[in-house]
């Protein structure tokens, strides 16, 4: 068991406070985590660092809010390599130390300008963002994102996202595609305030297909600054009736300043577990 401590030294402004007061542990070589790991502050996997997390591990983020912005400050920040190797019966859990698991109890697992990221059978709960991936090649499979503000969030990455469940988040998947490409397939995105939230700069280079996107406040809601029409073909939206599906998609039909979300053809039946064929590599 590891415990990383927080030091409270009150000086400078808020951002400086964070930079100066949260305990930071840097990982610069290969490190393997197994069992229960407590994070109180920031763990940063540096460029040459590699973090491997074994099946069944529980990564528990201490609920602290030094800058008092309502978002927990504990985080795992990766610029090197992260390999999360959960198993179906032994997932890796990223969670908070409080019993309620309320959204924003901890900040995020942030993968930014990293060498490589691989997540298999992980659970992210009670975070501001369960997982964020930016400027990185990443594979995210068989995982659950629940009770976060943003379940999974990405931009400018090469990504493969397969057979995950995003549920009870404000946004199941939030993305600014920018210069990304990749595939998002066989995911179940349900009971979020917004299932998929393309914020801006999305250009259809990430292919959303074969997903079950249903029972969300809006299944898809396009951001105010998104300009190009988007395609979400071959997904299941909970019904075969186009008029019903359209009610759950917030696009030009709701606001003439927004682009159109093209959904045809839609899948007439949900994708089942037996349909799922995730790629081994991408």
């Amino acid at each position, binding site marked *: 068991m590891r415990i990383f401590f927080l030091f409270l030294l009150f000086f*400078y*402004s808020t*951002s*400086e406070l*964070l*930079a*100066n007061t949260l305990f*930071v542990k*840097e990982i610069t070589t290969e490190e393997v985590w197994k069992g229960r790991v407590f994070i109180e502050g*920031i763990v*940063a996997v*540096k*460029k040459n660092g590699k973090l491997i997390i074994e099946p069944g591990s529980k990564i528990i983020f201490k609920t602290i809010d030094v800058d008092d912005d309502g978002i927990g400050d504990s985080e795992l*920040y990766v610029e090197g390599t992260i390999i999360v190797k959960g198993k179906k019966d032994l997932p890796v859990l990223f969670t908070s130390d409080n019993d309620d698991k309320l959204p924003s109890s901890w900040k995020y697992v942030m993968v930014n*300008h990293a060498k490589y990221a691989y997540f298999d059978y992980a659970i992210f709960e009670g975070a501001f963002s369960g997982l964020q991936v930016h*400027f*990185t*090649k990443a594979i995210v499979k068989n995982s659950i994102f629940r009770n976060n503000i943003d379940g999974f969030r990405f*931009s*400018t*990455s*090469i990504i493969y996202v397969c057979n995950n469940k995003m549920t009870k988040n404000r946004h199941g998947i939030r993305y*600014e595609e*920018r*210069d990304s490409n990749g595939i998002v397939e066989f995911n179940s995105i349900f009971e979020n305030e917004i299932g998929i939230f393309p914020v801006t*700069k999305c250009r259809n280079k990430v292919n959303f297909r074969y997903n079950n996107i249903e029972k969300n406040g809006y299944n898809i809601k396009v951001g105010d600054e998104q300009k190009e029409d988007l395609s979400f073909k071959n997904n299941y939206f909970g019904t075969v009736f186009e008029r019903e599906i359209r009610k759950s998609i917030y696009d030009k039909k709701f606001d003439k300043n927004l682009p159109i979300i093209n959904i045809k053809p839609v899948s007439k039946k949900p994708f089942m577990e037996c349909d799922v064929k995730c790629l081994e590599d991408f």
Partner: protein
Amino acid sequence: MKYLALIYLIFGLTGILHSYEVKGRVVIDSKPVNGAYINVYDQNMNVVLDSVKTNESGYFTLNLEEGTYFFRASYAEKNKKYVGYSGKNPVYIFQDDYIGIKLLPFYDLKIKKSKSGRSKIKGEVIFEGKPLKNAIVYFYLSGKDIKGMPYIYTMPTNKNGFFEINDILPGRYFLVARKKKSEAYFGPIDEGDFIGFFQQNPINIEKGKIYFVKIPVFKKVQDDIPNQVKASFKITGYALDESGKPVAGVYAFAYKNKEMGHERPVSISKKTKDDGYFELFIPERGVYYLGVRQFYGGTPVQGELYGLYEETYDHHIYVENDVKDIKITLRKILK
């Protein structure tokens, strides 16, 4: 005694509102212009000064308090009218400075009613009297934003230098035309790039009218420091590749916010030369987040050279003195 207090007050204020000497030169086709008027505006285009004239060598001198200003020059001879703007606009004056202005032929604005009732703006970008292809016209909502992100911008001009925006929302806009030799949409104006200001900035767009504008541009011949800030401290360092060799042609930057890229940087260096050396001018003591990148403006893209200050986990540095010889290693994004 009352008068003495007043004198003290006046002299005291004079001491607080220190003014700086701004020298400059106005030319037409590299030739000095005698008798050109220098117009200085604040960021809302209110006139600050308009009575200073150039001498026979084209030079002028004026004094300004610390602040951000627009510099414009105008001149008329033999029924010909010329107007020019400094390519450095808006200029933050915090020390004695030098402003060069090239005068360009004046093109008047034409307005007519739109049959459709929609507002449109049509125009032409002109270089040395001829249409300029592939220039972009940027629309800003205020003068102070001119070095930042525009409200909207046009498609590149066609072979006739033509651009058009339909259904533009009524309002007040500052128009700037640019063409970068790198073909980038954003970034500081480098030597060899084209820049020109609409000569009647700002333009007031009204509902149901079509506006015809011509924007003359000039070619920048000398590099200057982009985004210059009042410098209390200086950070110097080197941009290096993974083998430790210096990298030329990249920009160092300093942000105030950890989420770099969500706001304008506090400071941007000039493009590095062969030695990879950069300088960042920092306005005040505090925490700054540092990096170096290949392209200026917008989100970094796949294949772009990019690197962050690695001595702290989140790339911050606390500046309370000059910082020397930091090293930042660049790698290609997602390669």
